[in-house]
């Protein structure tokens, strides 16, 4: 029991952090990250996707350079390009968040591709993610996992 206690405590703290962070926006300077969500995965072999919205309330642009997460070894921002009805996926590269602008990562557009999952993404659970911005530096968020059939953050 003594040995399990710290783990229970840690998950409890994490749960509180998770519920507060996902219910509210996470602010870092002029940037506000909101409505993160991910779909549940089947096992770990296939890449999963996470989505979110970044608001820039400042007067100068910032750039999302990359992503880190404990859920996957190699997360990367990807974008879907639709040409003549043909969908093609590729790395988005650095994503500029314009001054007073909003960048949305949503199905059919951009997503954080979670490759090499460290564990299956289970509905109802959470994982942490760090967004790395050129100016603002790191912003930590908690991403709730919805069902595999979810299509948006309001599931």
């Amino acid at each position, binding site marked *: 029991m003594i040995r399990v206690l710290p783990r229970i405590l840690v998950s409890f703290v994490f749960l509180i952090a998770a519920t507060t962070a996902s219910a509210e926006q996470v602010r870092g300077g002029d940037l506000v990250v909101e409505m993160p969500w991910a779909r549940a995965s089947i096992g770990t072999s*296939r890449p999963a996707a996470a989505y979110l919205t970044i608001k820039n309330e400042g007067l100068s642009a910032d750039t999302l350079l990359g992503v880190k997460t404990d859920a996957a070894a190699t997360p990367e921002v990807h974008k879907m390009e639709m040409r003549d009805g043909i*969908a093609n996926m590729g790395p988005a590269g650095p994503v500029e968040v314009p001054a007073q602008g909003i960048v949305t990562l949503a199905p059919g557009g951009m997503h954080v591709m979670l490759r090499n999952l460290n564990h299956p993404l289970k509905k109802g659970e959470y994982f942490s993610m760090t967004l790395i911005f050129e100016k603002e530096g790191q912003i930590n968020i908690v991403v709730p996992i919805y069902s595999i059939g979810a299509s948006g953050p309001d599931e």
Partner: protein
Amino acid sequence: MTTVRSILWVAVAVALAVFIWLNVWLDSGQHAIDDSSNGPTSAVSPTFSLTDQLGNFVTEQAYRGEWLLVFFGFTNCPDICPTTLAELAQVMEGLGTNAESVTPLFISIDPSRDRPKTMAEYVIAFHSTIVGLTGTAAQISAAVGSFKAYFEKRPLASVPDGYTMGHTSAVYLISPTGAFVRTYSYGTPAEEIVTDLQQRL
């Protein structure tokens, strides 16, 4: 004077011919553009010989008498495919009892990774009515070709196995007699598809 007049008449005739030719040409060009924006046309005659997620060999004949909603994709696709399959699941739920006459088919365009067993664990996660079909590379090319759909393998270092698949993102509606009816472009809301289907069923 008469020569000047005949030259003028010739000029008028030439101008008229050019005018008519331009009109016809522009018109036909316009049609070509219209056709491409509408996507597949009546030339689509869907046929396939594939294996379903239970390991059964099936052709299009197996689904005569049912409306088919056909989508091409692959199970390693993290965005478009789960989004569309989730939408098809919503359509099936939205149809209520009419869902009995509709079968969604998810046809893999990634035969080297998507075996029947893979398809089985994938499609069931979305809806019990979705059929997952795969086959050999040749069988899949033939199926895709009959739908006038498109897919391509593209190298991409940042994904598993170093490649991804580009593919037609629309959902095809096939009638109970096996005729192509229409496509629903990617992102068509489930309610819109349900309303359209309810009028046809």
